[in-house]
């Protein structure tokens, strides 16, 4: 067989049945092999869209996402998506075609050093130089993408390798990566928890990625302490848990931020003290000792000193550090914060108030729906006002903050979980960043629901210009947006525009009752901002609110 056929064989051997990509000259032999393969290829309309679909597929399913691109511009178009997968620890294998080895290094047509370009945005990248190493390299790429802290791996395959004859190798089972877990500090952690008067659990995406949500619920039940989550950790805490305070950080709830600032023990579970979480670092949780549990040793003491660190498998560690606490007064205090600073939806006027609309969407959407966000104000409103029962149901570009993520990620999520409702919530700026993927939705008749929250602005940038740049609104006006409903109609996707609060309920009903893809265009007031907000350089207790 040819190397290209072997690529498909390895994908099948790895259990891959869904891939995303875009063909081109240097990857044509692999696309020729796809023609006869049972692996289903989804043609996207841009390589970045294809890779984001693979990321959405991976994040919604827990499987490895796979995307393909040709050399040169196809490969460079992957770079943003690889960076997104790296910063959000998403298992992704990207396969790129490369010009033949005979012309590599000669500035050949569509030749670019993608391996060099990928160094800073992948967990690892391989260049296959010998067809006899092709199968092993691909297997290694899958193993690496999933092992330890997951991430993107790129495999660059020159065209001559794809065309070279190779015999089907025996399929040695690669040993699963050993995950060393040390419980040496478990007793110390239990002691810190038992002695704490004001403990709080700070939960990131790593808990769900370790498949440790049941262990987390048990830990929170036994220790009975308040909890907060990061953007990626949302959905980790069971809805029934009364002590959950919401998201912390720049646009977190006031209760979450104030409780973290006041706590005496911060138990960081699968999170990394991101600057959007901590605000001014030296004022973050200033009274707290820190227990840090993670799979990645490089995260320990990277940003915040850990008084007690536990490395390895969260599933083993959480039961080992679980212990009862004596903090009834603290729980009462946190409940008071939660009540005092609860969300308010009594917005004056007839215009649609995005937080209320998203709350209505959250209440109306079927259970286990997947919501894929873009980046900006709407992303923070989704995090604040929608509830999720798993991080796999809330796909948001956290670390990289990539506009254009939502629509293609929704495509991948829908293909990963066809029985579940998938909703792409986007802004008018973000939506235009990968709008071409409407073509993918049309081609595969994917019943993705699209909600565009349109303030005719790059809203988050505009908000910062208003607050911190003396209202100099430089290049954030999008009042010449296209007619989004007409745009959807060009892709045979029905849609509807709403502008008033009293239209929301019936519009959501119409969207969910329509069997196919649907676009709901929601016009909001450009003056609406995201509150609360921790200003840049401020401590998390110094939140700005609408009334400041």
């Amino acid at each position: 067989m040819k190397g290209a056929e072997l690529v498909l064989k390895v994908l099948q051997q790895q259990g891959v049945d869904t891939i995303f990509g875009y063909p081109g000259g240097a990857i044509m032999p692999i696309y020729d092999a796809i023609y006869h393969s049972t692996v289903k290829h989804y043609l996207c309309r841009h390589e970045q869209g294809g890779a984001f679909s693979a990321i959405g597929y991976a994040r919604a399913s827990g499987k490895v996402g796979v995307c393909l691109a040709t050399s040169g511009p196809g490969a460079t178009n992957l770079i943003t998506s690889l960076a997104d997968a790296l910063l959000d620890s998403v298992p992704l294998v990207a396969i790129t075609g490369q010009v033949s080895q005979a012309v590599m290094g000669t500035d050949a047509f569509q030749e670019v050093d993608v391996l060099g370009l990928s160094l800073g945005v992948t967990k690892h990248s391989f260049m296959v130089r010998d067809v006899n190493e092709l199968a092993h390299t691909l297997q290694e790429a899958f193993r690496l993408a999933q092992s330890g802290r997951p991430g993107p791996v790129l495999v660059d395959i020159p065209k001559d390798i794809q065309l070279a004859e190779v015999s089907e190798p025996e399929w040695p089972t690669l040993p699963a990566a050993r995950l060393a877990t040390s419980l040496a500090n478990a007793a110390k952690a239990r002691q810190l928890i038992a002695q704490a008067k004001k403990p709080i659990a700070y939960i990131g995406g790593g808990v769900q990625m370790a498949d440790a949500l049941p262990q987390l619920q048990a830990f929170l039940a036994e220790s009975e302490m308040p909890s907060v989550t990061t953007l990626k950790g949302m959905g980790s805490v069971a809805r029934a848990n009364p002590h959950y305070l919401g998201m912390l950080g720049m646009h977190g709830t006031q209760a979450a931020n104030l409780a973290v600032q006041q706590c005496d023990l911060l138990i960081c579970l699968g999170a990394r003290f991101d600057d959007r979480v901590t605000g001014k670092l030296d004022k973050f949780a200033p009274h707290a000792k820190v227990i840090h549990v993670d799979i990645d040793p490089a995260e320990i003491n990277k940003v915040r000193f850990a008084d007690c660190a536990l490395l390895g498998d969260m599933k083993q560690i959480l039961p080992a550090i679980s212990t009862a606490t004596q903090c009834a007064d603290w729980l009462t205090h946190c409940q008071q914060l939660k009540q005092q600073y609860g969300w308010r939806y009594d917005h004056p006027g007839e215009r649609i108030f995005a937080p209320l609309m998203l709350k209505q969407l959250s209440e109306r959407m079927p259970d286990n729906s997947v919501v894929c966000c873009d980046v900006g104000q709407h992303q923070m409103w989704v995090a604040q006002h929608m509830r999720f029962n798993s991080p796999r149901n809330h796909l948001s570009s956290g670390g990289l903050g990539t506009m254009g993520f939502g629509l293609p990620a929704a495509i991948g999520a829908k293909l990963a979980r066809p029985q579940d409702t998938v909703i792409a919530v986007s802004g008018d700026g973000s939506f235009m960043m990968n709008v071409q993927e409407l073509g993918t939705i049309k081609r595969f008749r994917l019943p993705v629901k699209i909600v565009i929250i349109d303030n005719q602005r790059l809203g988050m940038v505009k908000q910062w210009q208003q607050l911190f740049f003396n209202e100099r609104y430089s290049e954030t006006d999008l009042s010449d947006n296209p007619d989004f409903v007409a745009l959807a109609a060009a892709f045979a996707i029905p849609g509807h525009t709403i502008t008033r609060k009293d239209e929301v309920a019936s519009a959501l009903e119409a969207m969910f009752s329509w069997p196919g893809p649907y676009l709901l265009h929601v016009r909001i007031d450009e003056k609406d901002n995201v509150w609360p907000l921790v200003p840049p350089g401020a401590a998390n207790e110094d939140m700005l609110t609408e009334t400041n």
Partner: protein
Amino acid sequence: MQHTLNITTRNEASVVERLLQVTRYRGYQLAGLAMTPLTDRAGLQITLTVQSEKPITLLTSQLVKLYDVQQLELASADVAVLRA
């Protein structure tokens, strides 16, 4: 403060670029670099000297994660084998 790292890696074409990319990105200044193929040519022995006021563990913890790095030792008064 200056630190010298003795690193054993696979003999892959991109390995030095990777080490230097991580070193630069994490904010450590390169102060010296030497590379020798091991006798079987399957690996490389790389000596990397860097300068920074940051704790060196913030760099070594990132370098040992690299796929091609097989062993990393800090050549100082307290030599620590970070990956066996």
